[in-house]
């Protein structure tokens, strides 16, 4: 802040208080993720910048992962990247064990419940992440599930997570769920309709370009993973590097 208490150097030396050193198990690696569900697809996108404080550790550290199952499921755990990577790695193992034990691929709904138990399992030493899962549900419709760090979760049409979530989320309310928009003829509130894949990708690019403009922890590259019944496609889009 703008003011600090004045400490007299002489008395500070005389009454040198003991300095407490403490290990801090968490840090924040910035970045932002975003997922939108469509009628027969889902997208999960994330920037590839990896930071600590004001330093950029990497301009290309992808964080949107495809789980080893068929049909595939996309997952990203944004926040403290060491915890995110660990969660995704362990989730991958659990998803494989599931297929061995049950002789079938895990559904997105079951995967979401599994993530809840994994996150809550560390209730008193949490994974410091905002987790988003995207895939196709059993009817083939796009599904997005989002989680808080201790496993509270919800299925949604769209969700932004991470550093610039507060910048992107109101934009999504407005453009995906058509909040605060009214029909010109009837005067009734507009109801959300499924977006086409092309429109969805345009929206994702706009959201990230805007977030990059105003948030220092977002930038470098955008990685968009698109899941359809054909499988997973990946698209890259350059973001500002400043």
């Amino acid at each position, binding site marked *: 802040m703008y003011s600090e208490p004045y400490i007299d150097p002489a008395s500070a030396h005389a009454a040198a208080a003991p300095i407490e050193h403490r290990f801090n198990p968490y840090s924040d690696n910035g970045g932002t993720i975003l997922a939108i569900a469509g009628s027969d697809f889902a997208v999960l996108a994330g920037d590839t910048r990896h930071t600590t404080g004001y330093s950029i550790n990497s301009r290309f550290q992808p964080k949107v992962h495809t789980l080893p199952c068929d049909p595939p499921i996309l997952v990203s755990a944004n926040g403290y990247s060491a915890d995110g990577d660990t969660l995704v790695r362990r989730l991958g193992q659990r998803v494989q064990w599931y297929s061995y034990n049950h002789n079938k691929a895990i559904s997105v709904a079951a995967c979401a419940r599994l993530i809840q138990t994994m996150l809550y399992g560390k209730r008193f030493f949490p994974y410091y992440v905002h987790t988003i899962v995207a895939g196709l549900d059993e009817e083939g419709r796009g599904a997005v599930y989002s989680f808080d760090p201790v496993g509270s979760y919800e299925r949604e049409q769209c969700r932004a997570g991470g550093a*610039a979530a507060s910048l992107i*989320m109101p*934009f999504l*309310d*407005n453009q995906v769920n058509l909040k*605060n928009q009214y029909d010109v003829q009837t005067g009734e509130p507009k109801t959300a309709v499924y977006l086409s894949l092309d429109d969805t990708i345009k929206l994702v690019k706009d959201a990230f370009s*805007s977030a990059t403009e105003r948030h220092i922890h977002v930038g470098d590259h955008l990685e968009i993973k698109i899941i359809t019944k054909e499988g997973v496609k990946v698209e890259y889009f350059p973001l500002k590097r400043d």
Partner: protein
Amino acid sequence: MSDPSSINGGSVVAMVGKDCVAIGCDMRLGMQALTVSNDFPKIFQFNNAFLGLTGLATDVITLSEVFRYKVNLYNLREERKIEPETFANLVSSSLYEKRFGPYFVGPVVAGINSKSGHPYICGFDLIGCINFAKDFVVGGTSSEQLFGMCESLWEPDLEPDDLFETISQALLNAQDRDAMSGWGAIVYIITKDKVVKRLLKTRQD
């Protein structure tokens, strides 16, 4: 939540269009999580300049009256209306005067210069550092949400009607993602020869 700038809540936003400017605010006054009033506008008119004031409500009221007093004296001394640029510098120097015991506010100024006809907007920090923006300025508890909305909705040279829609959507959707802002909204659309004030119908939660 003992931070003075987020006790009462509230937000403002201003935007530039083609030969027009717009400024909007929410209507909430709260004490931490408790809403006390839904009739607390944060925009004040001083001749050709419009001032949006967010932050600690006591300072919002005090400053609005300080500026009423100062602008009245300006009118008597100069025998003319104050222009937005001049008013912005008055705001800046008045805030810096309290450099080591500041008012906890986030002011925004908008207006059209009556001589040149140029649209003008700017924002300030609590000690008066001016942010000369060409596009939009935001302030208050939903400033992050407003940045996200404005950065994605705003485009250059909007006509007054389109500027109204843009600033309203930016404000409404931003305040709906902030528990400290909302409970009504006011938007002013300012052109060289007309000022339109609109009360927006919003969610009441």
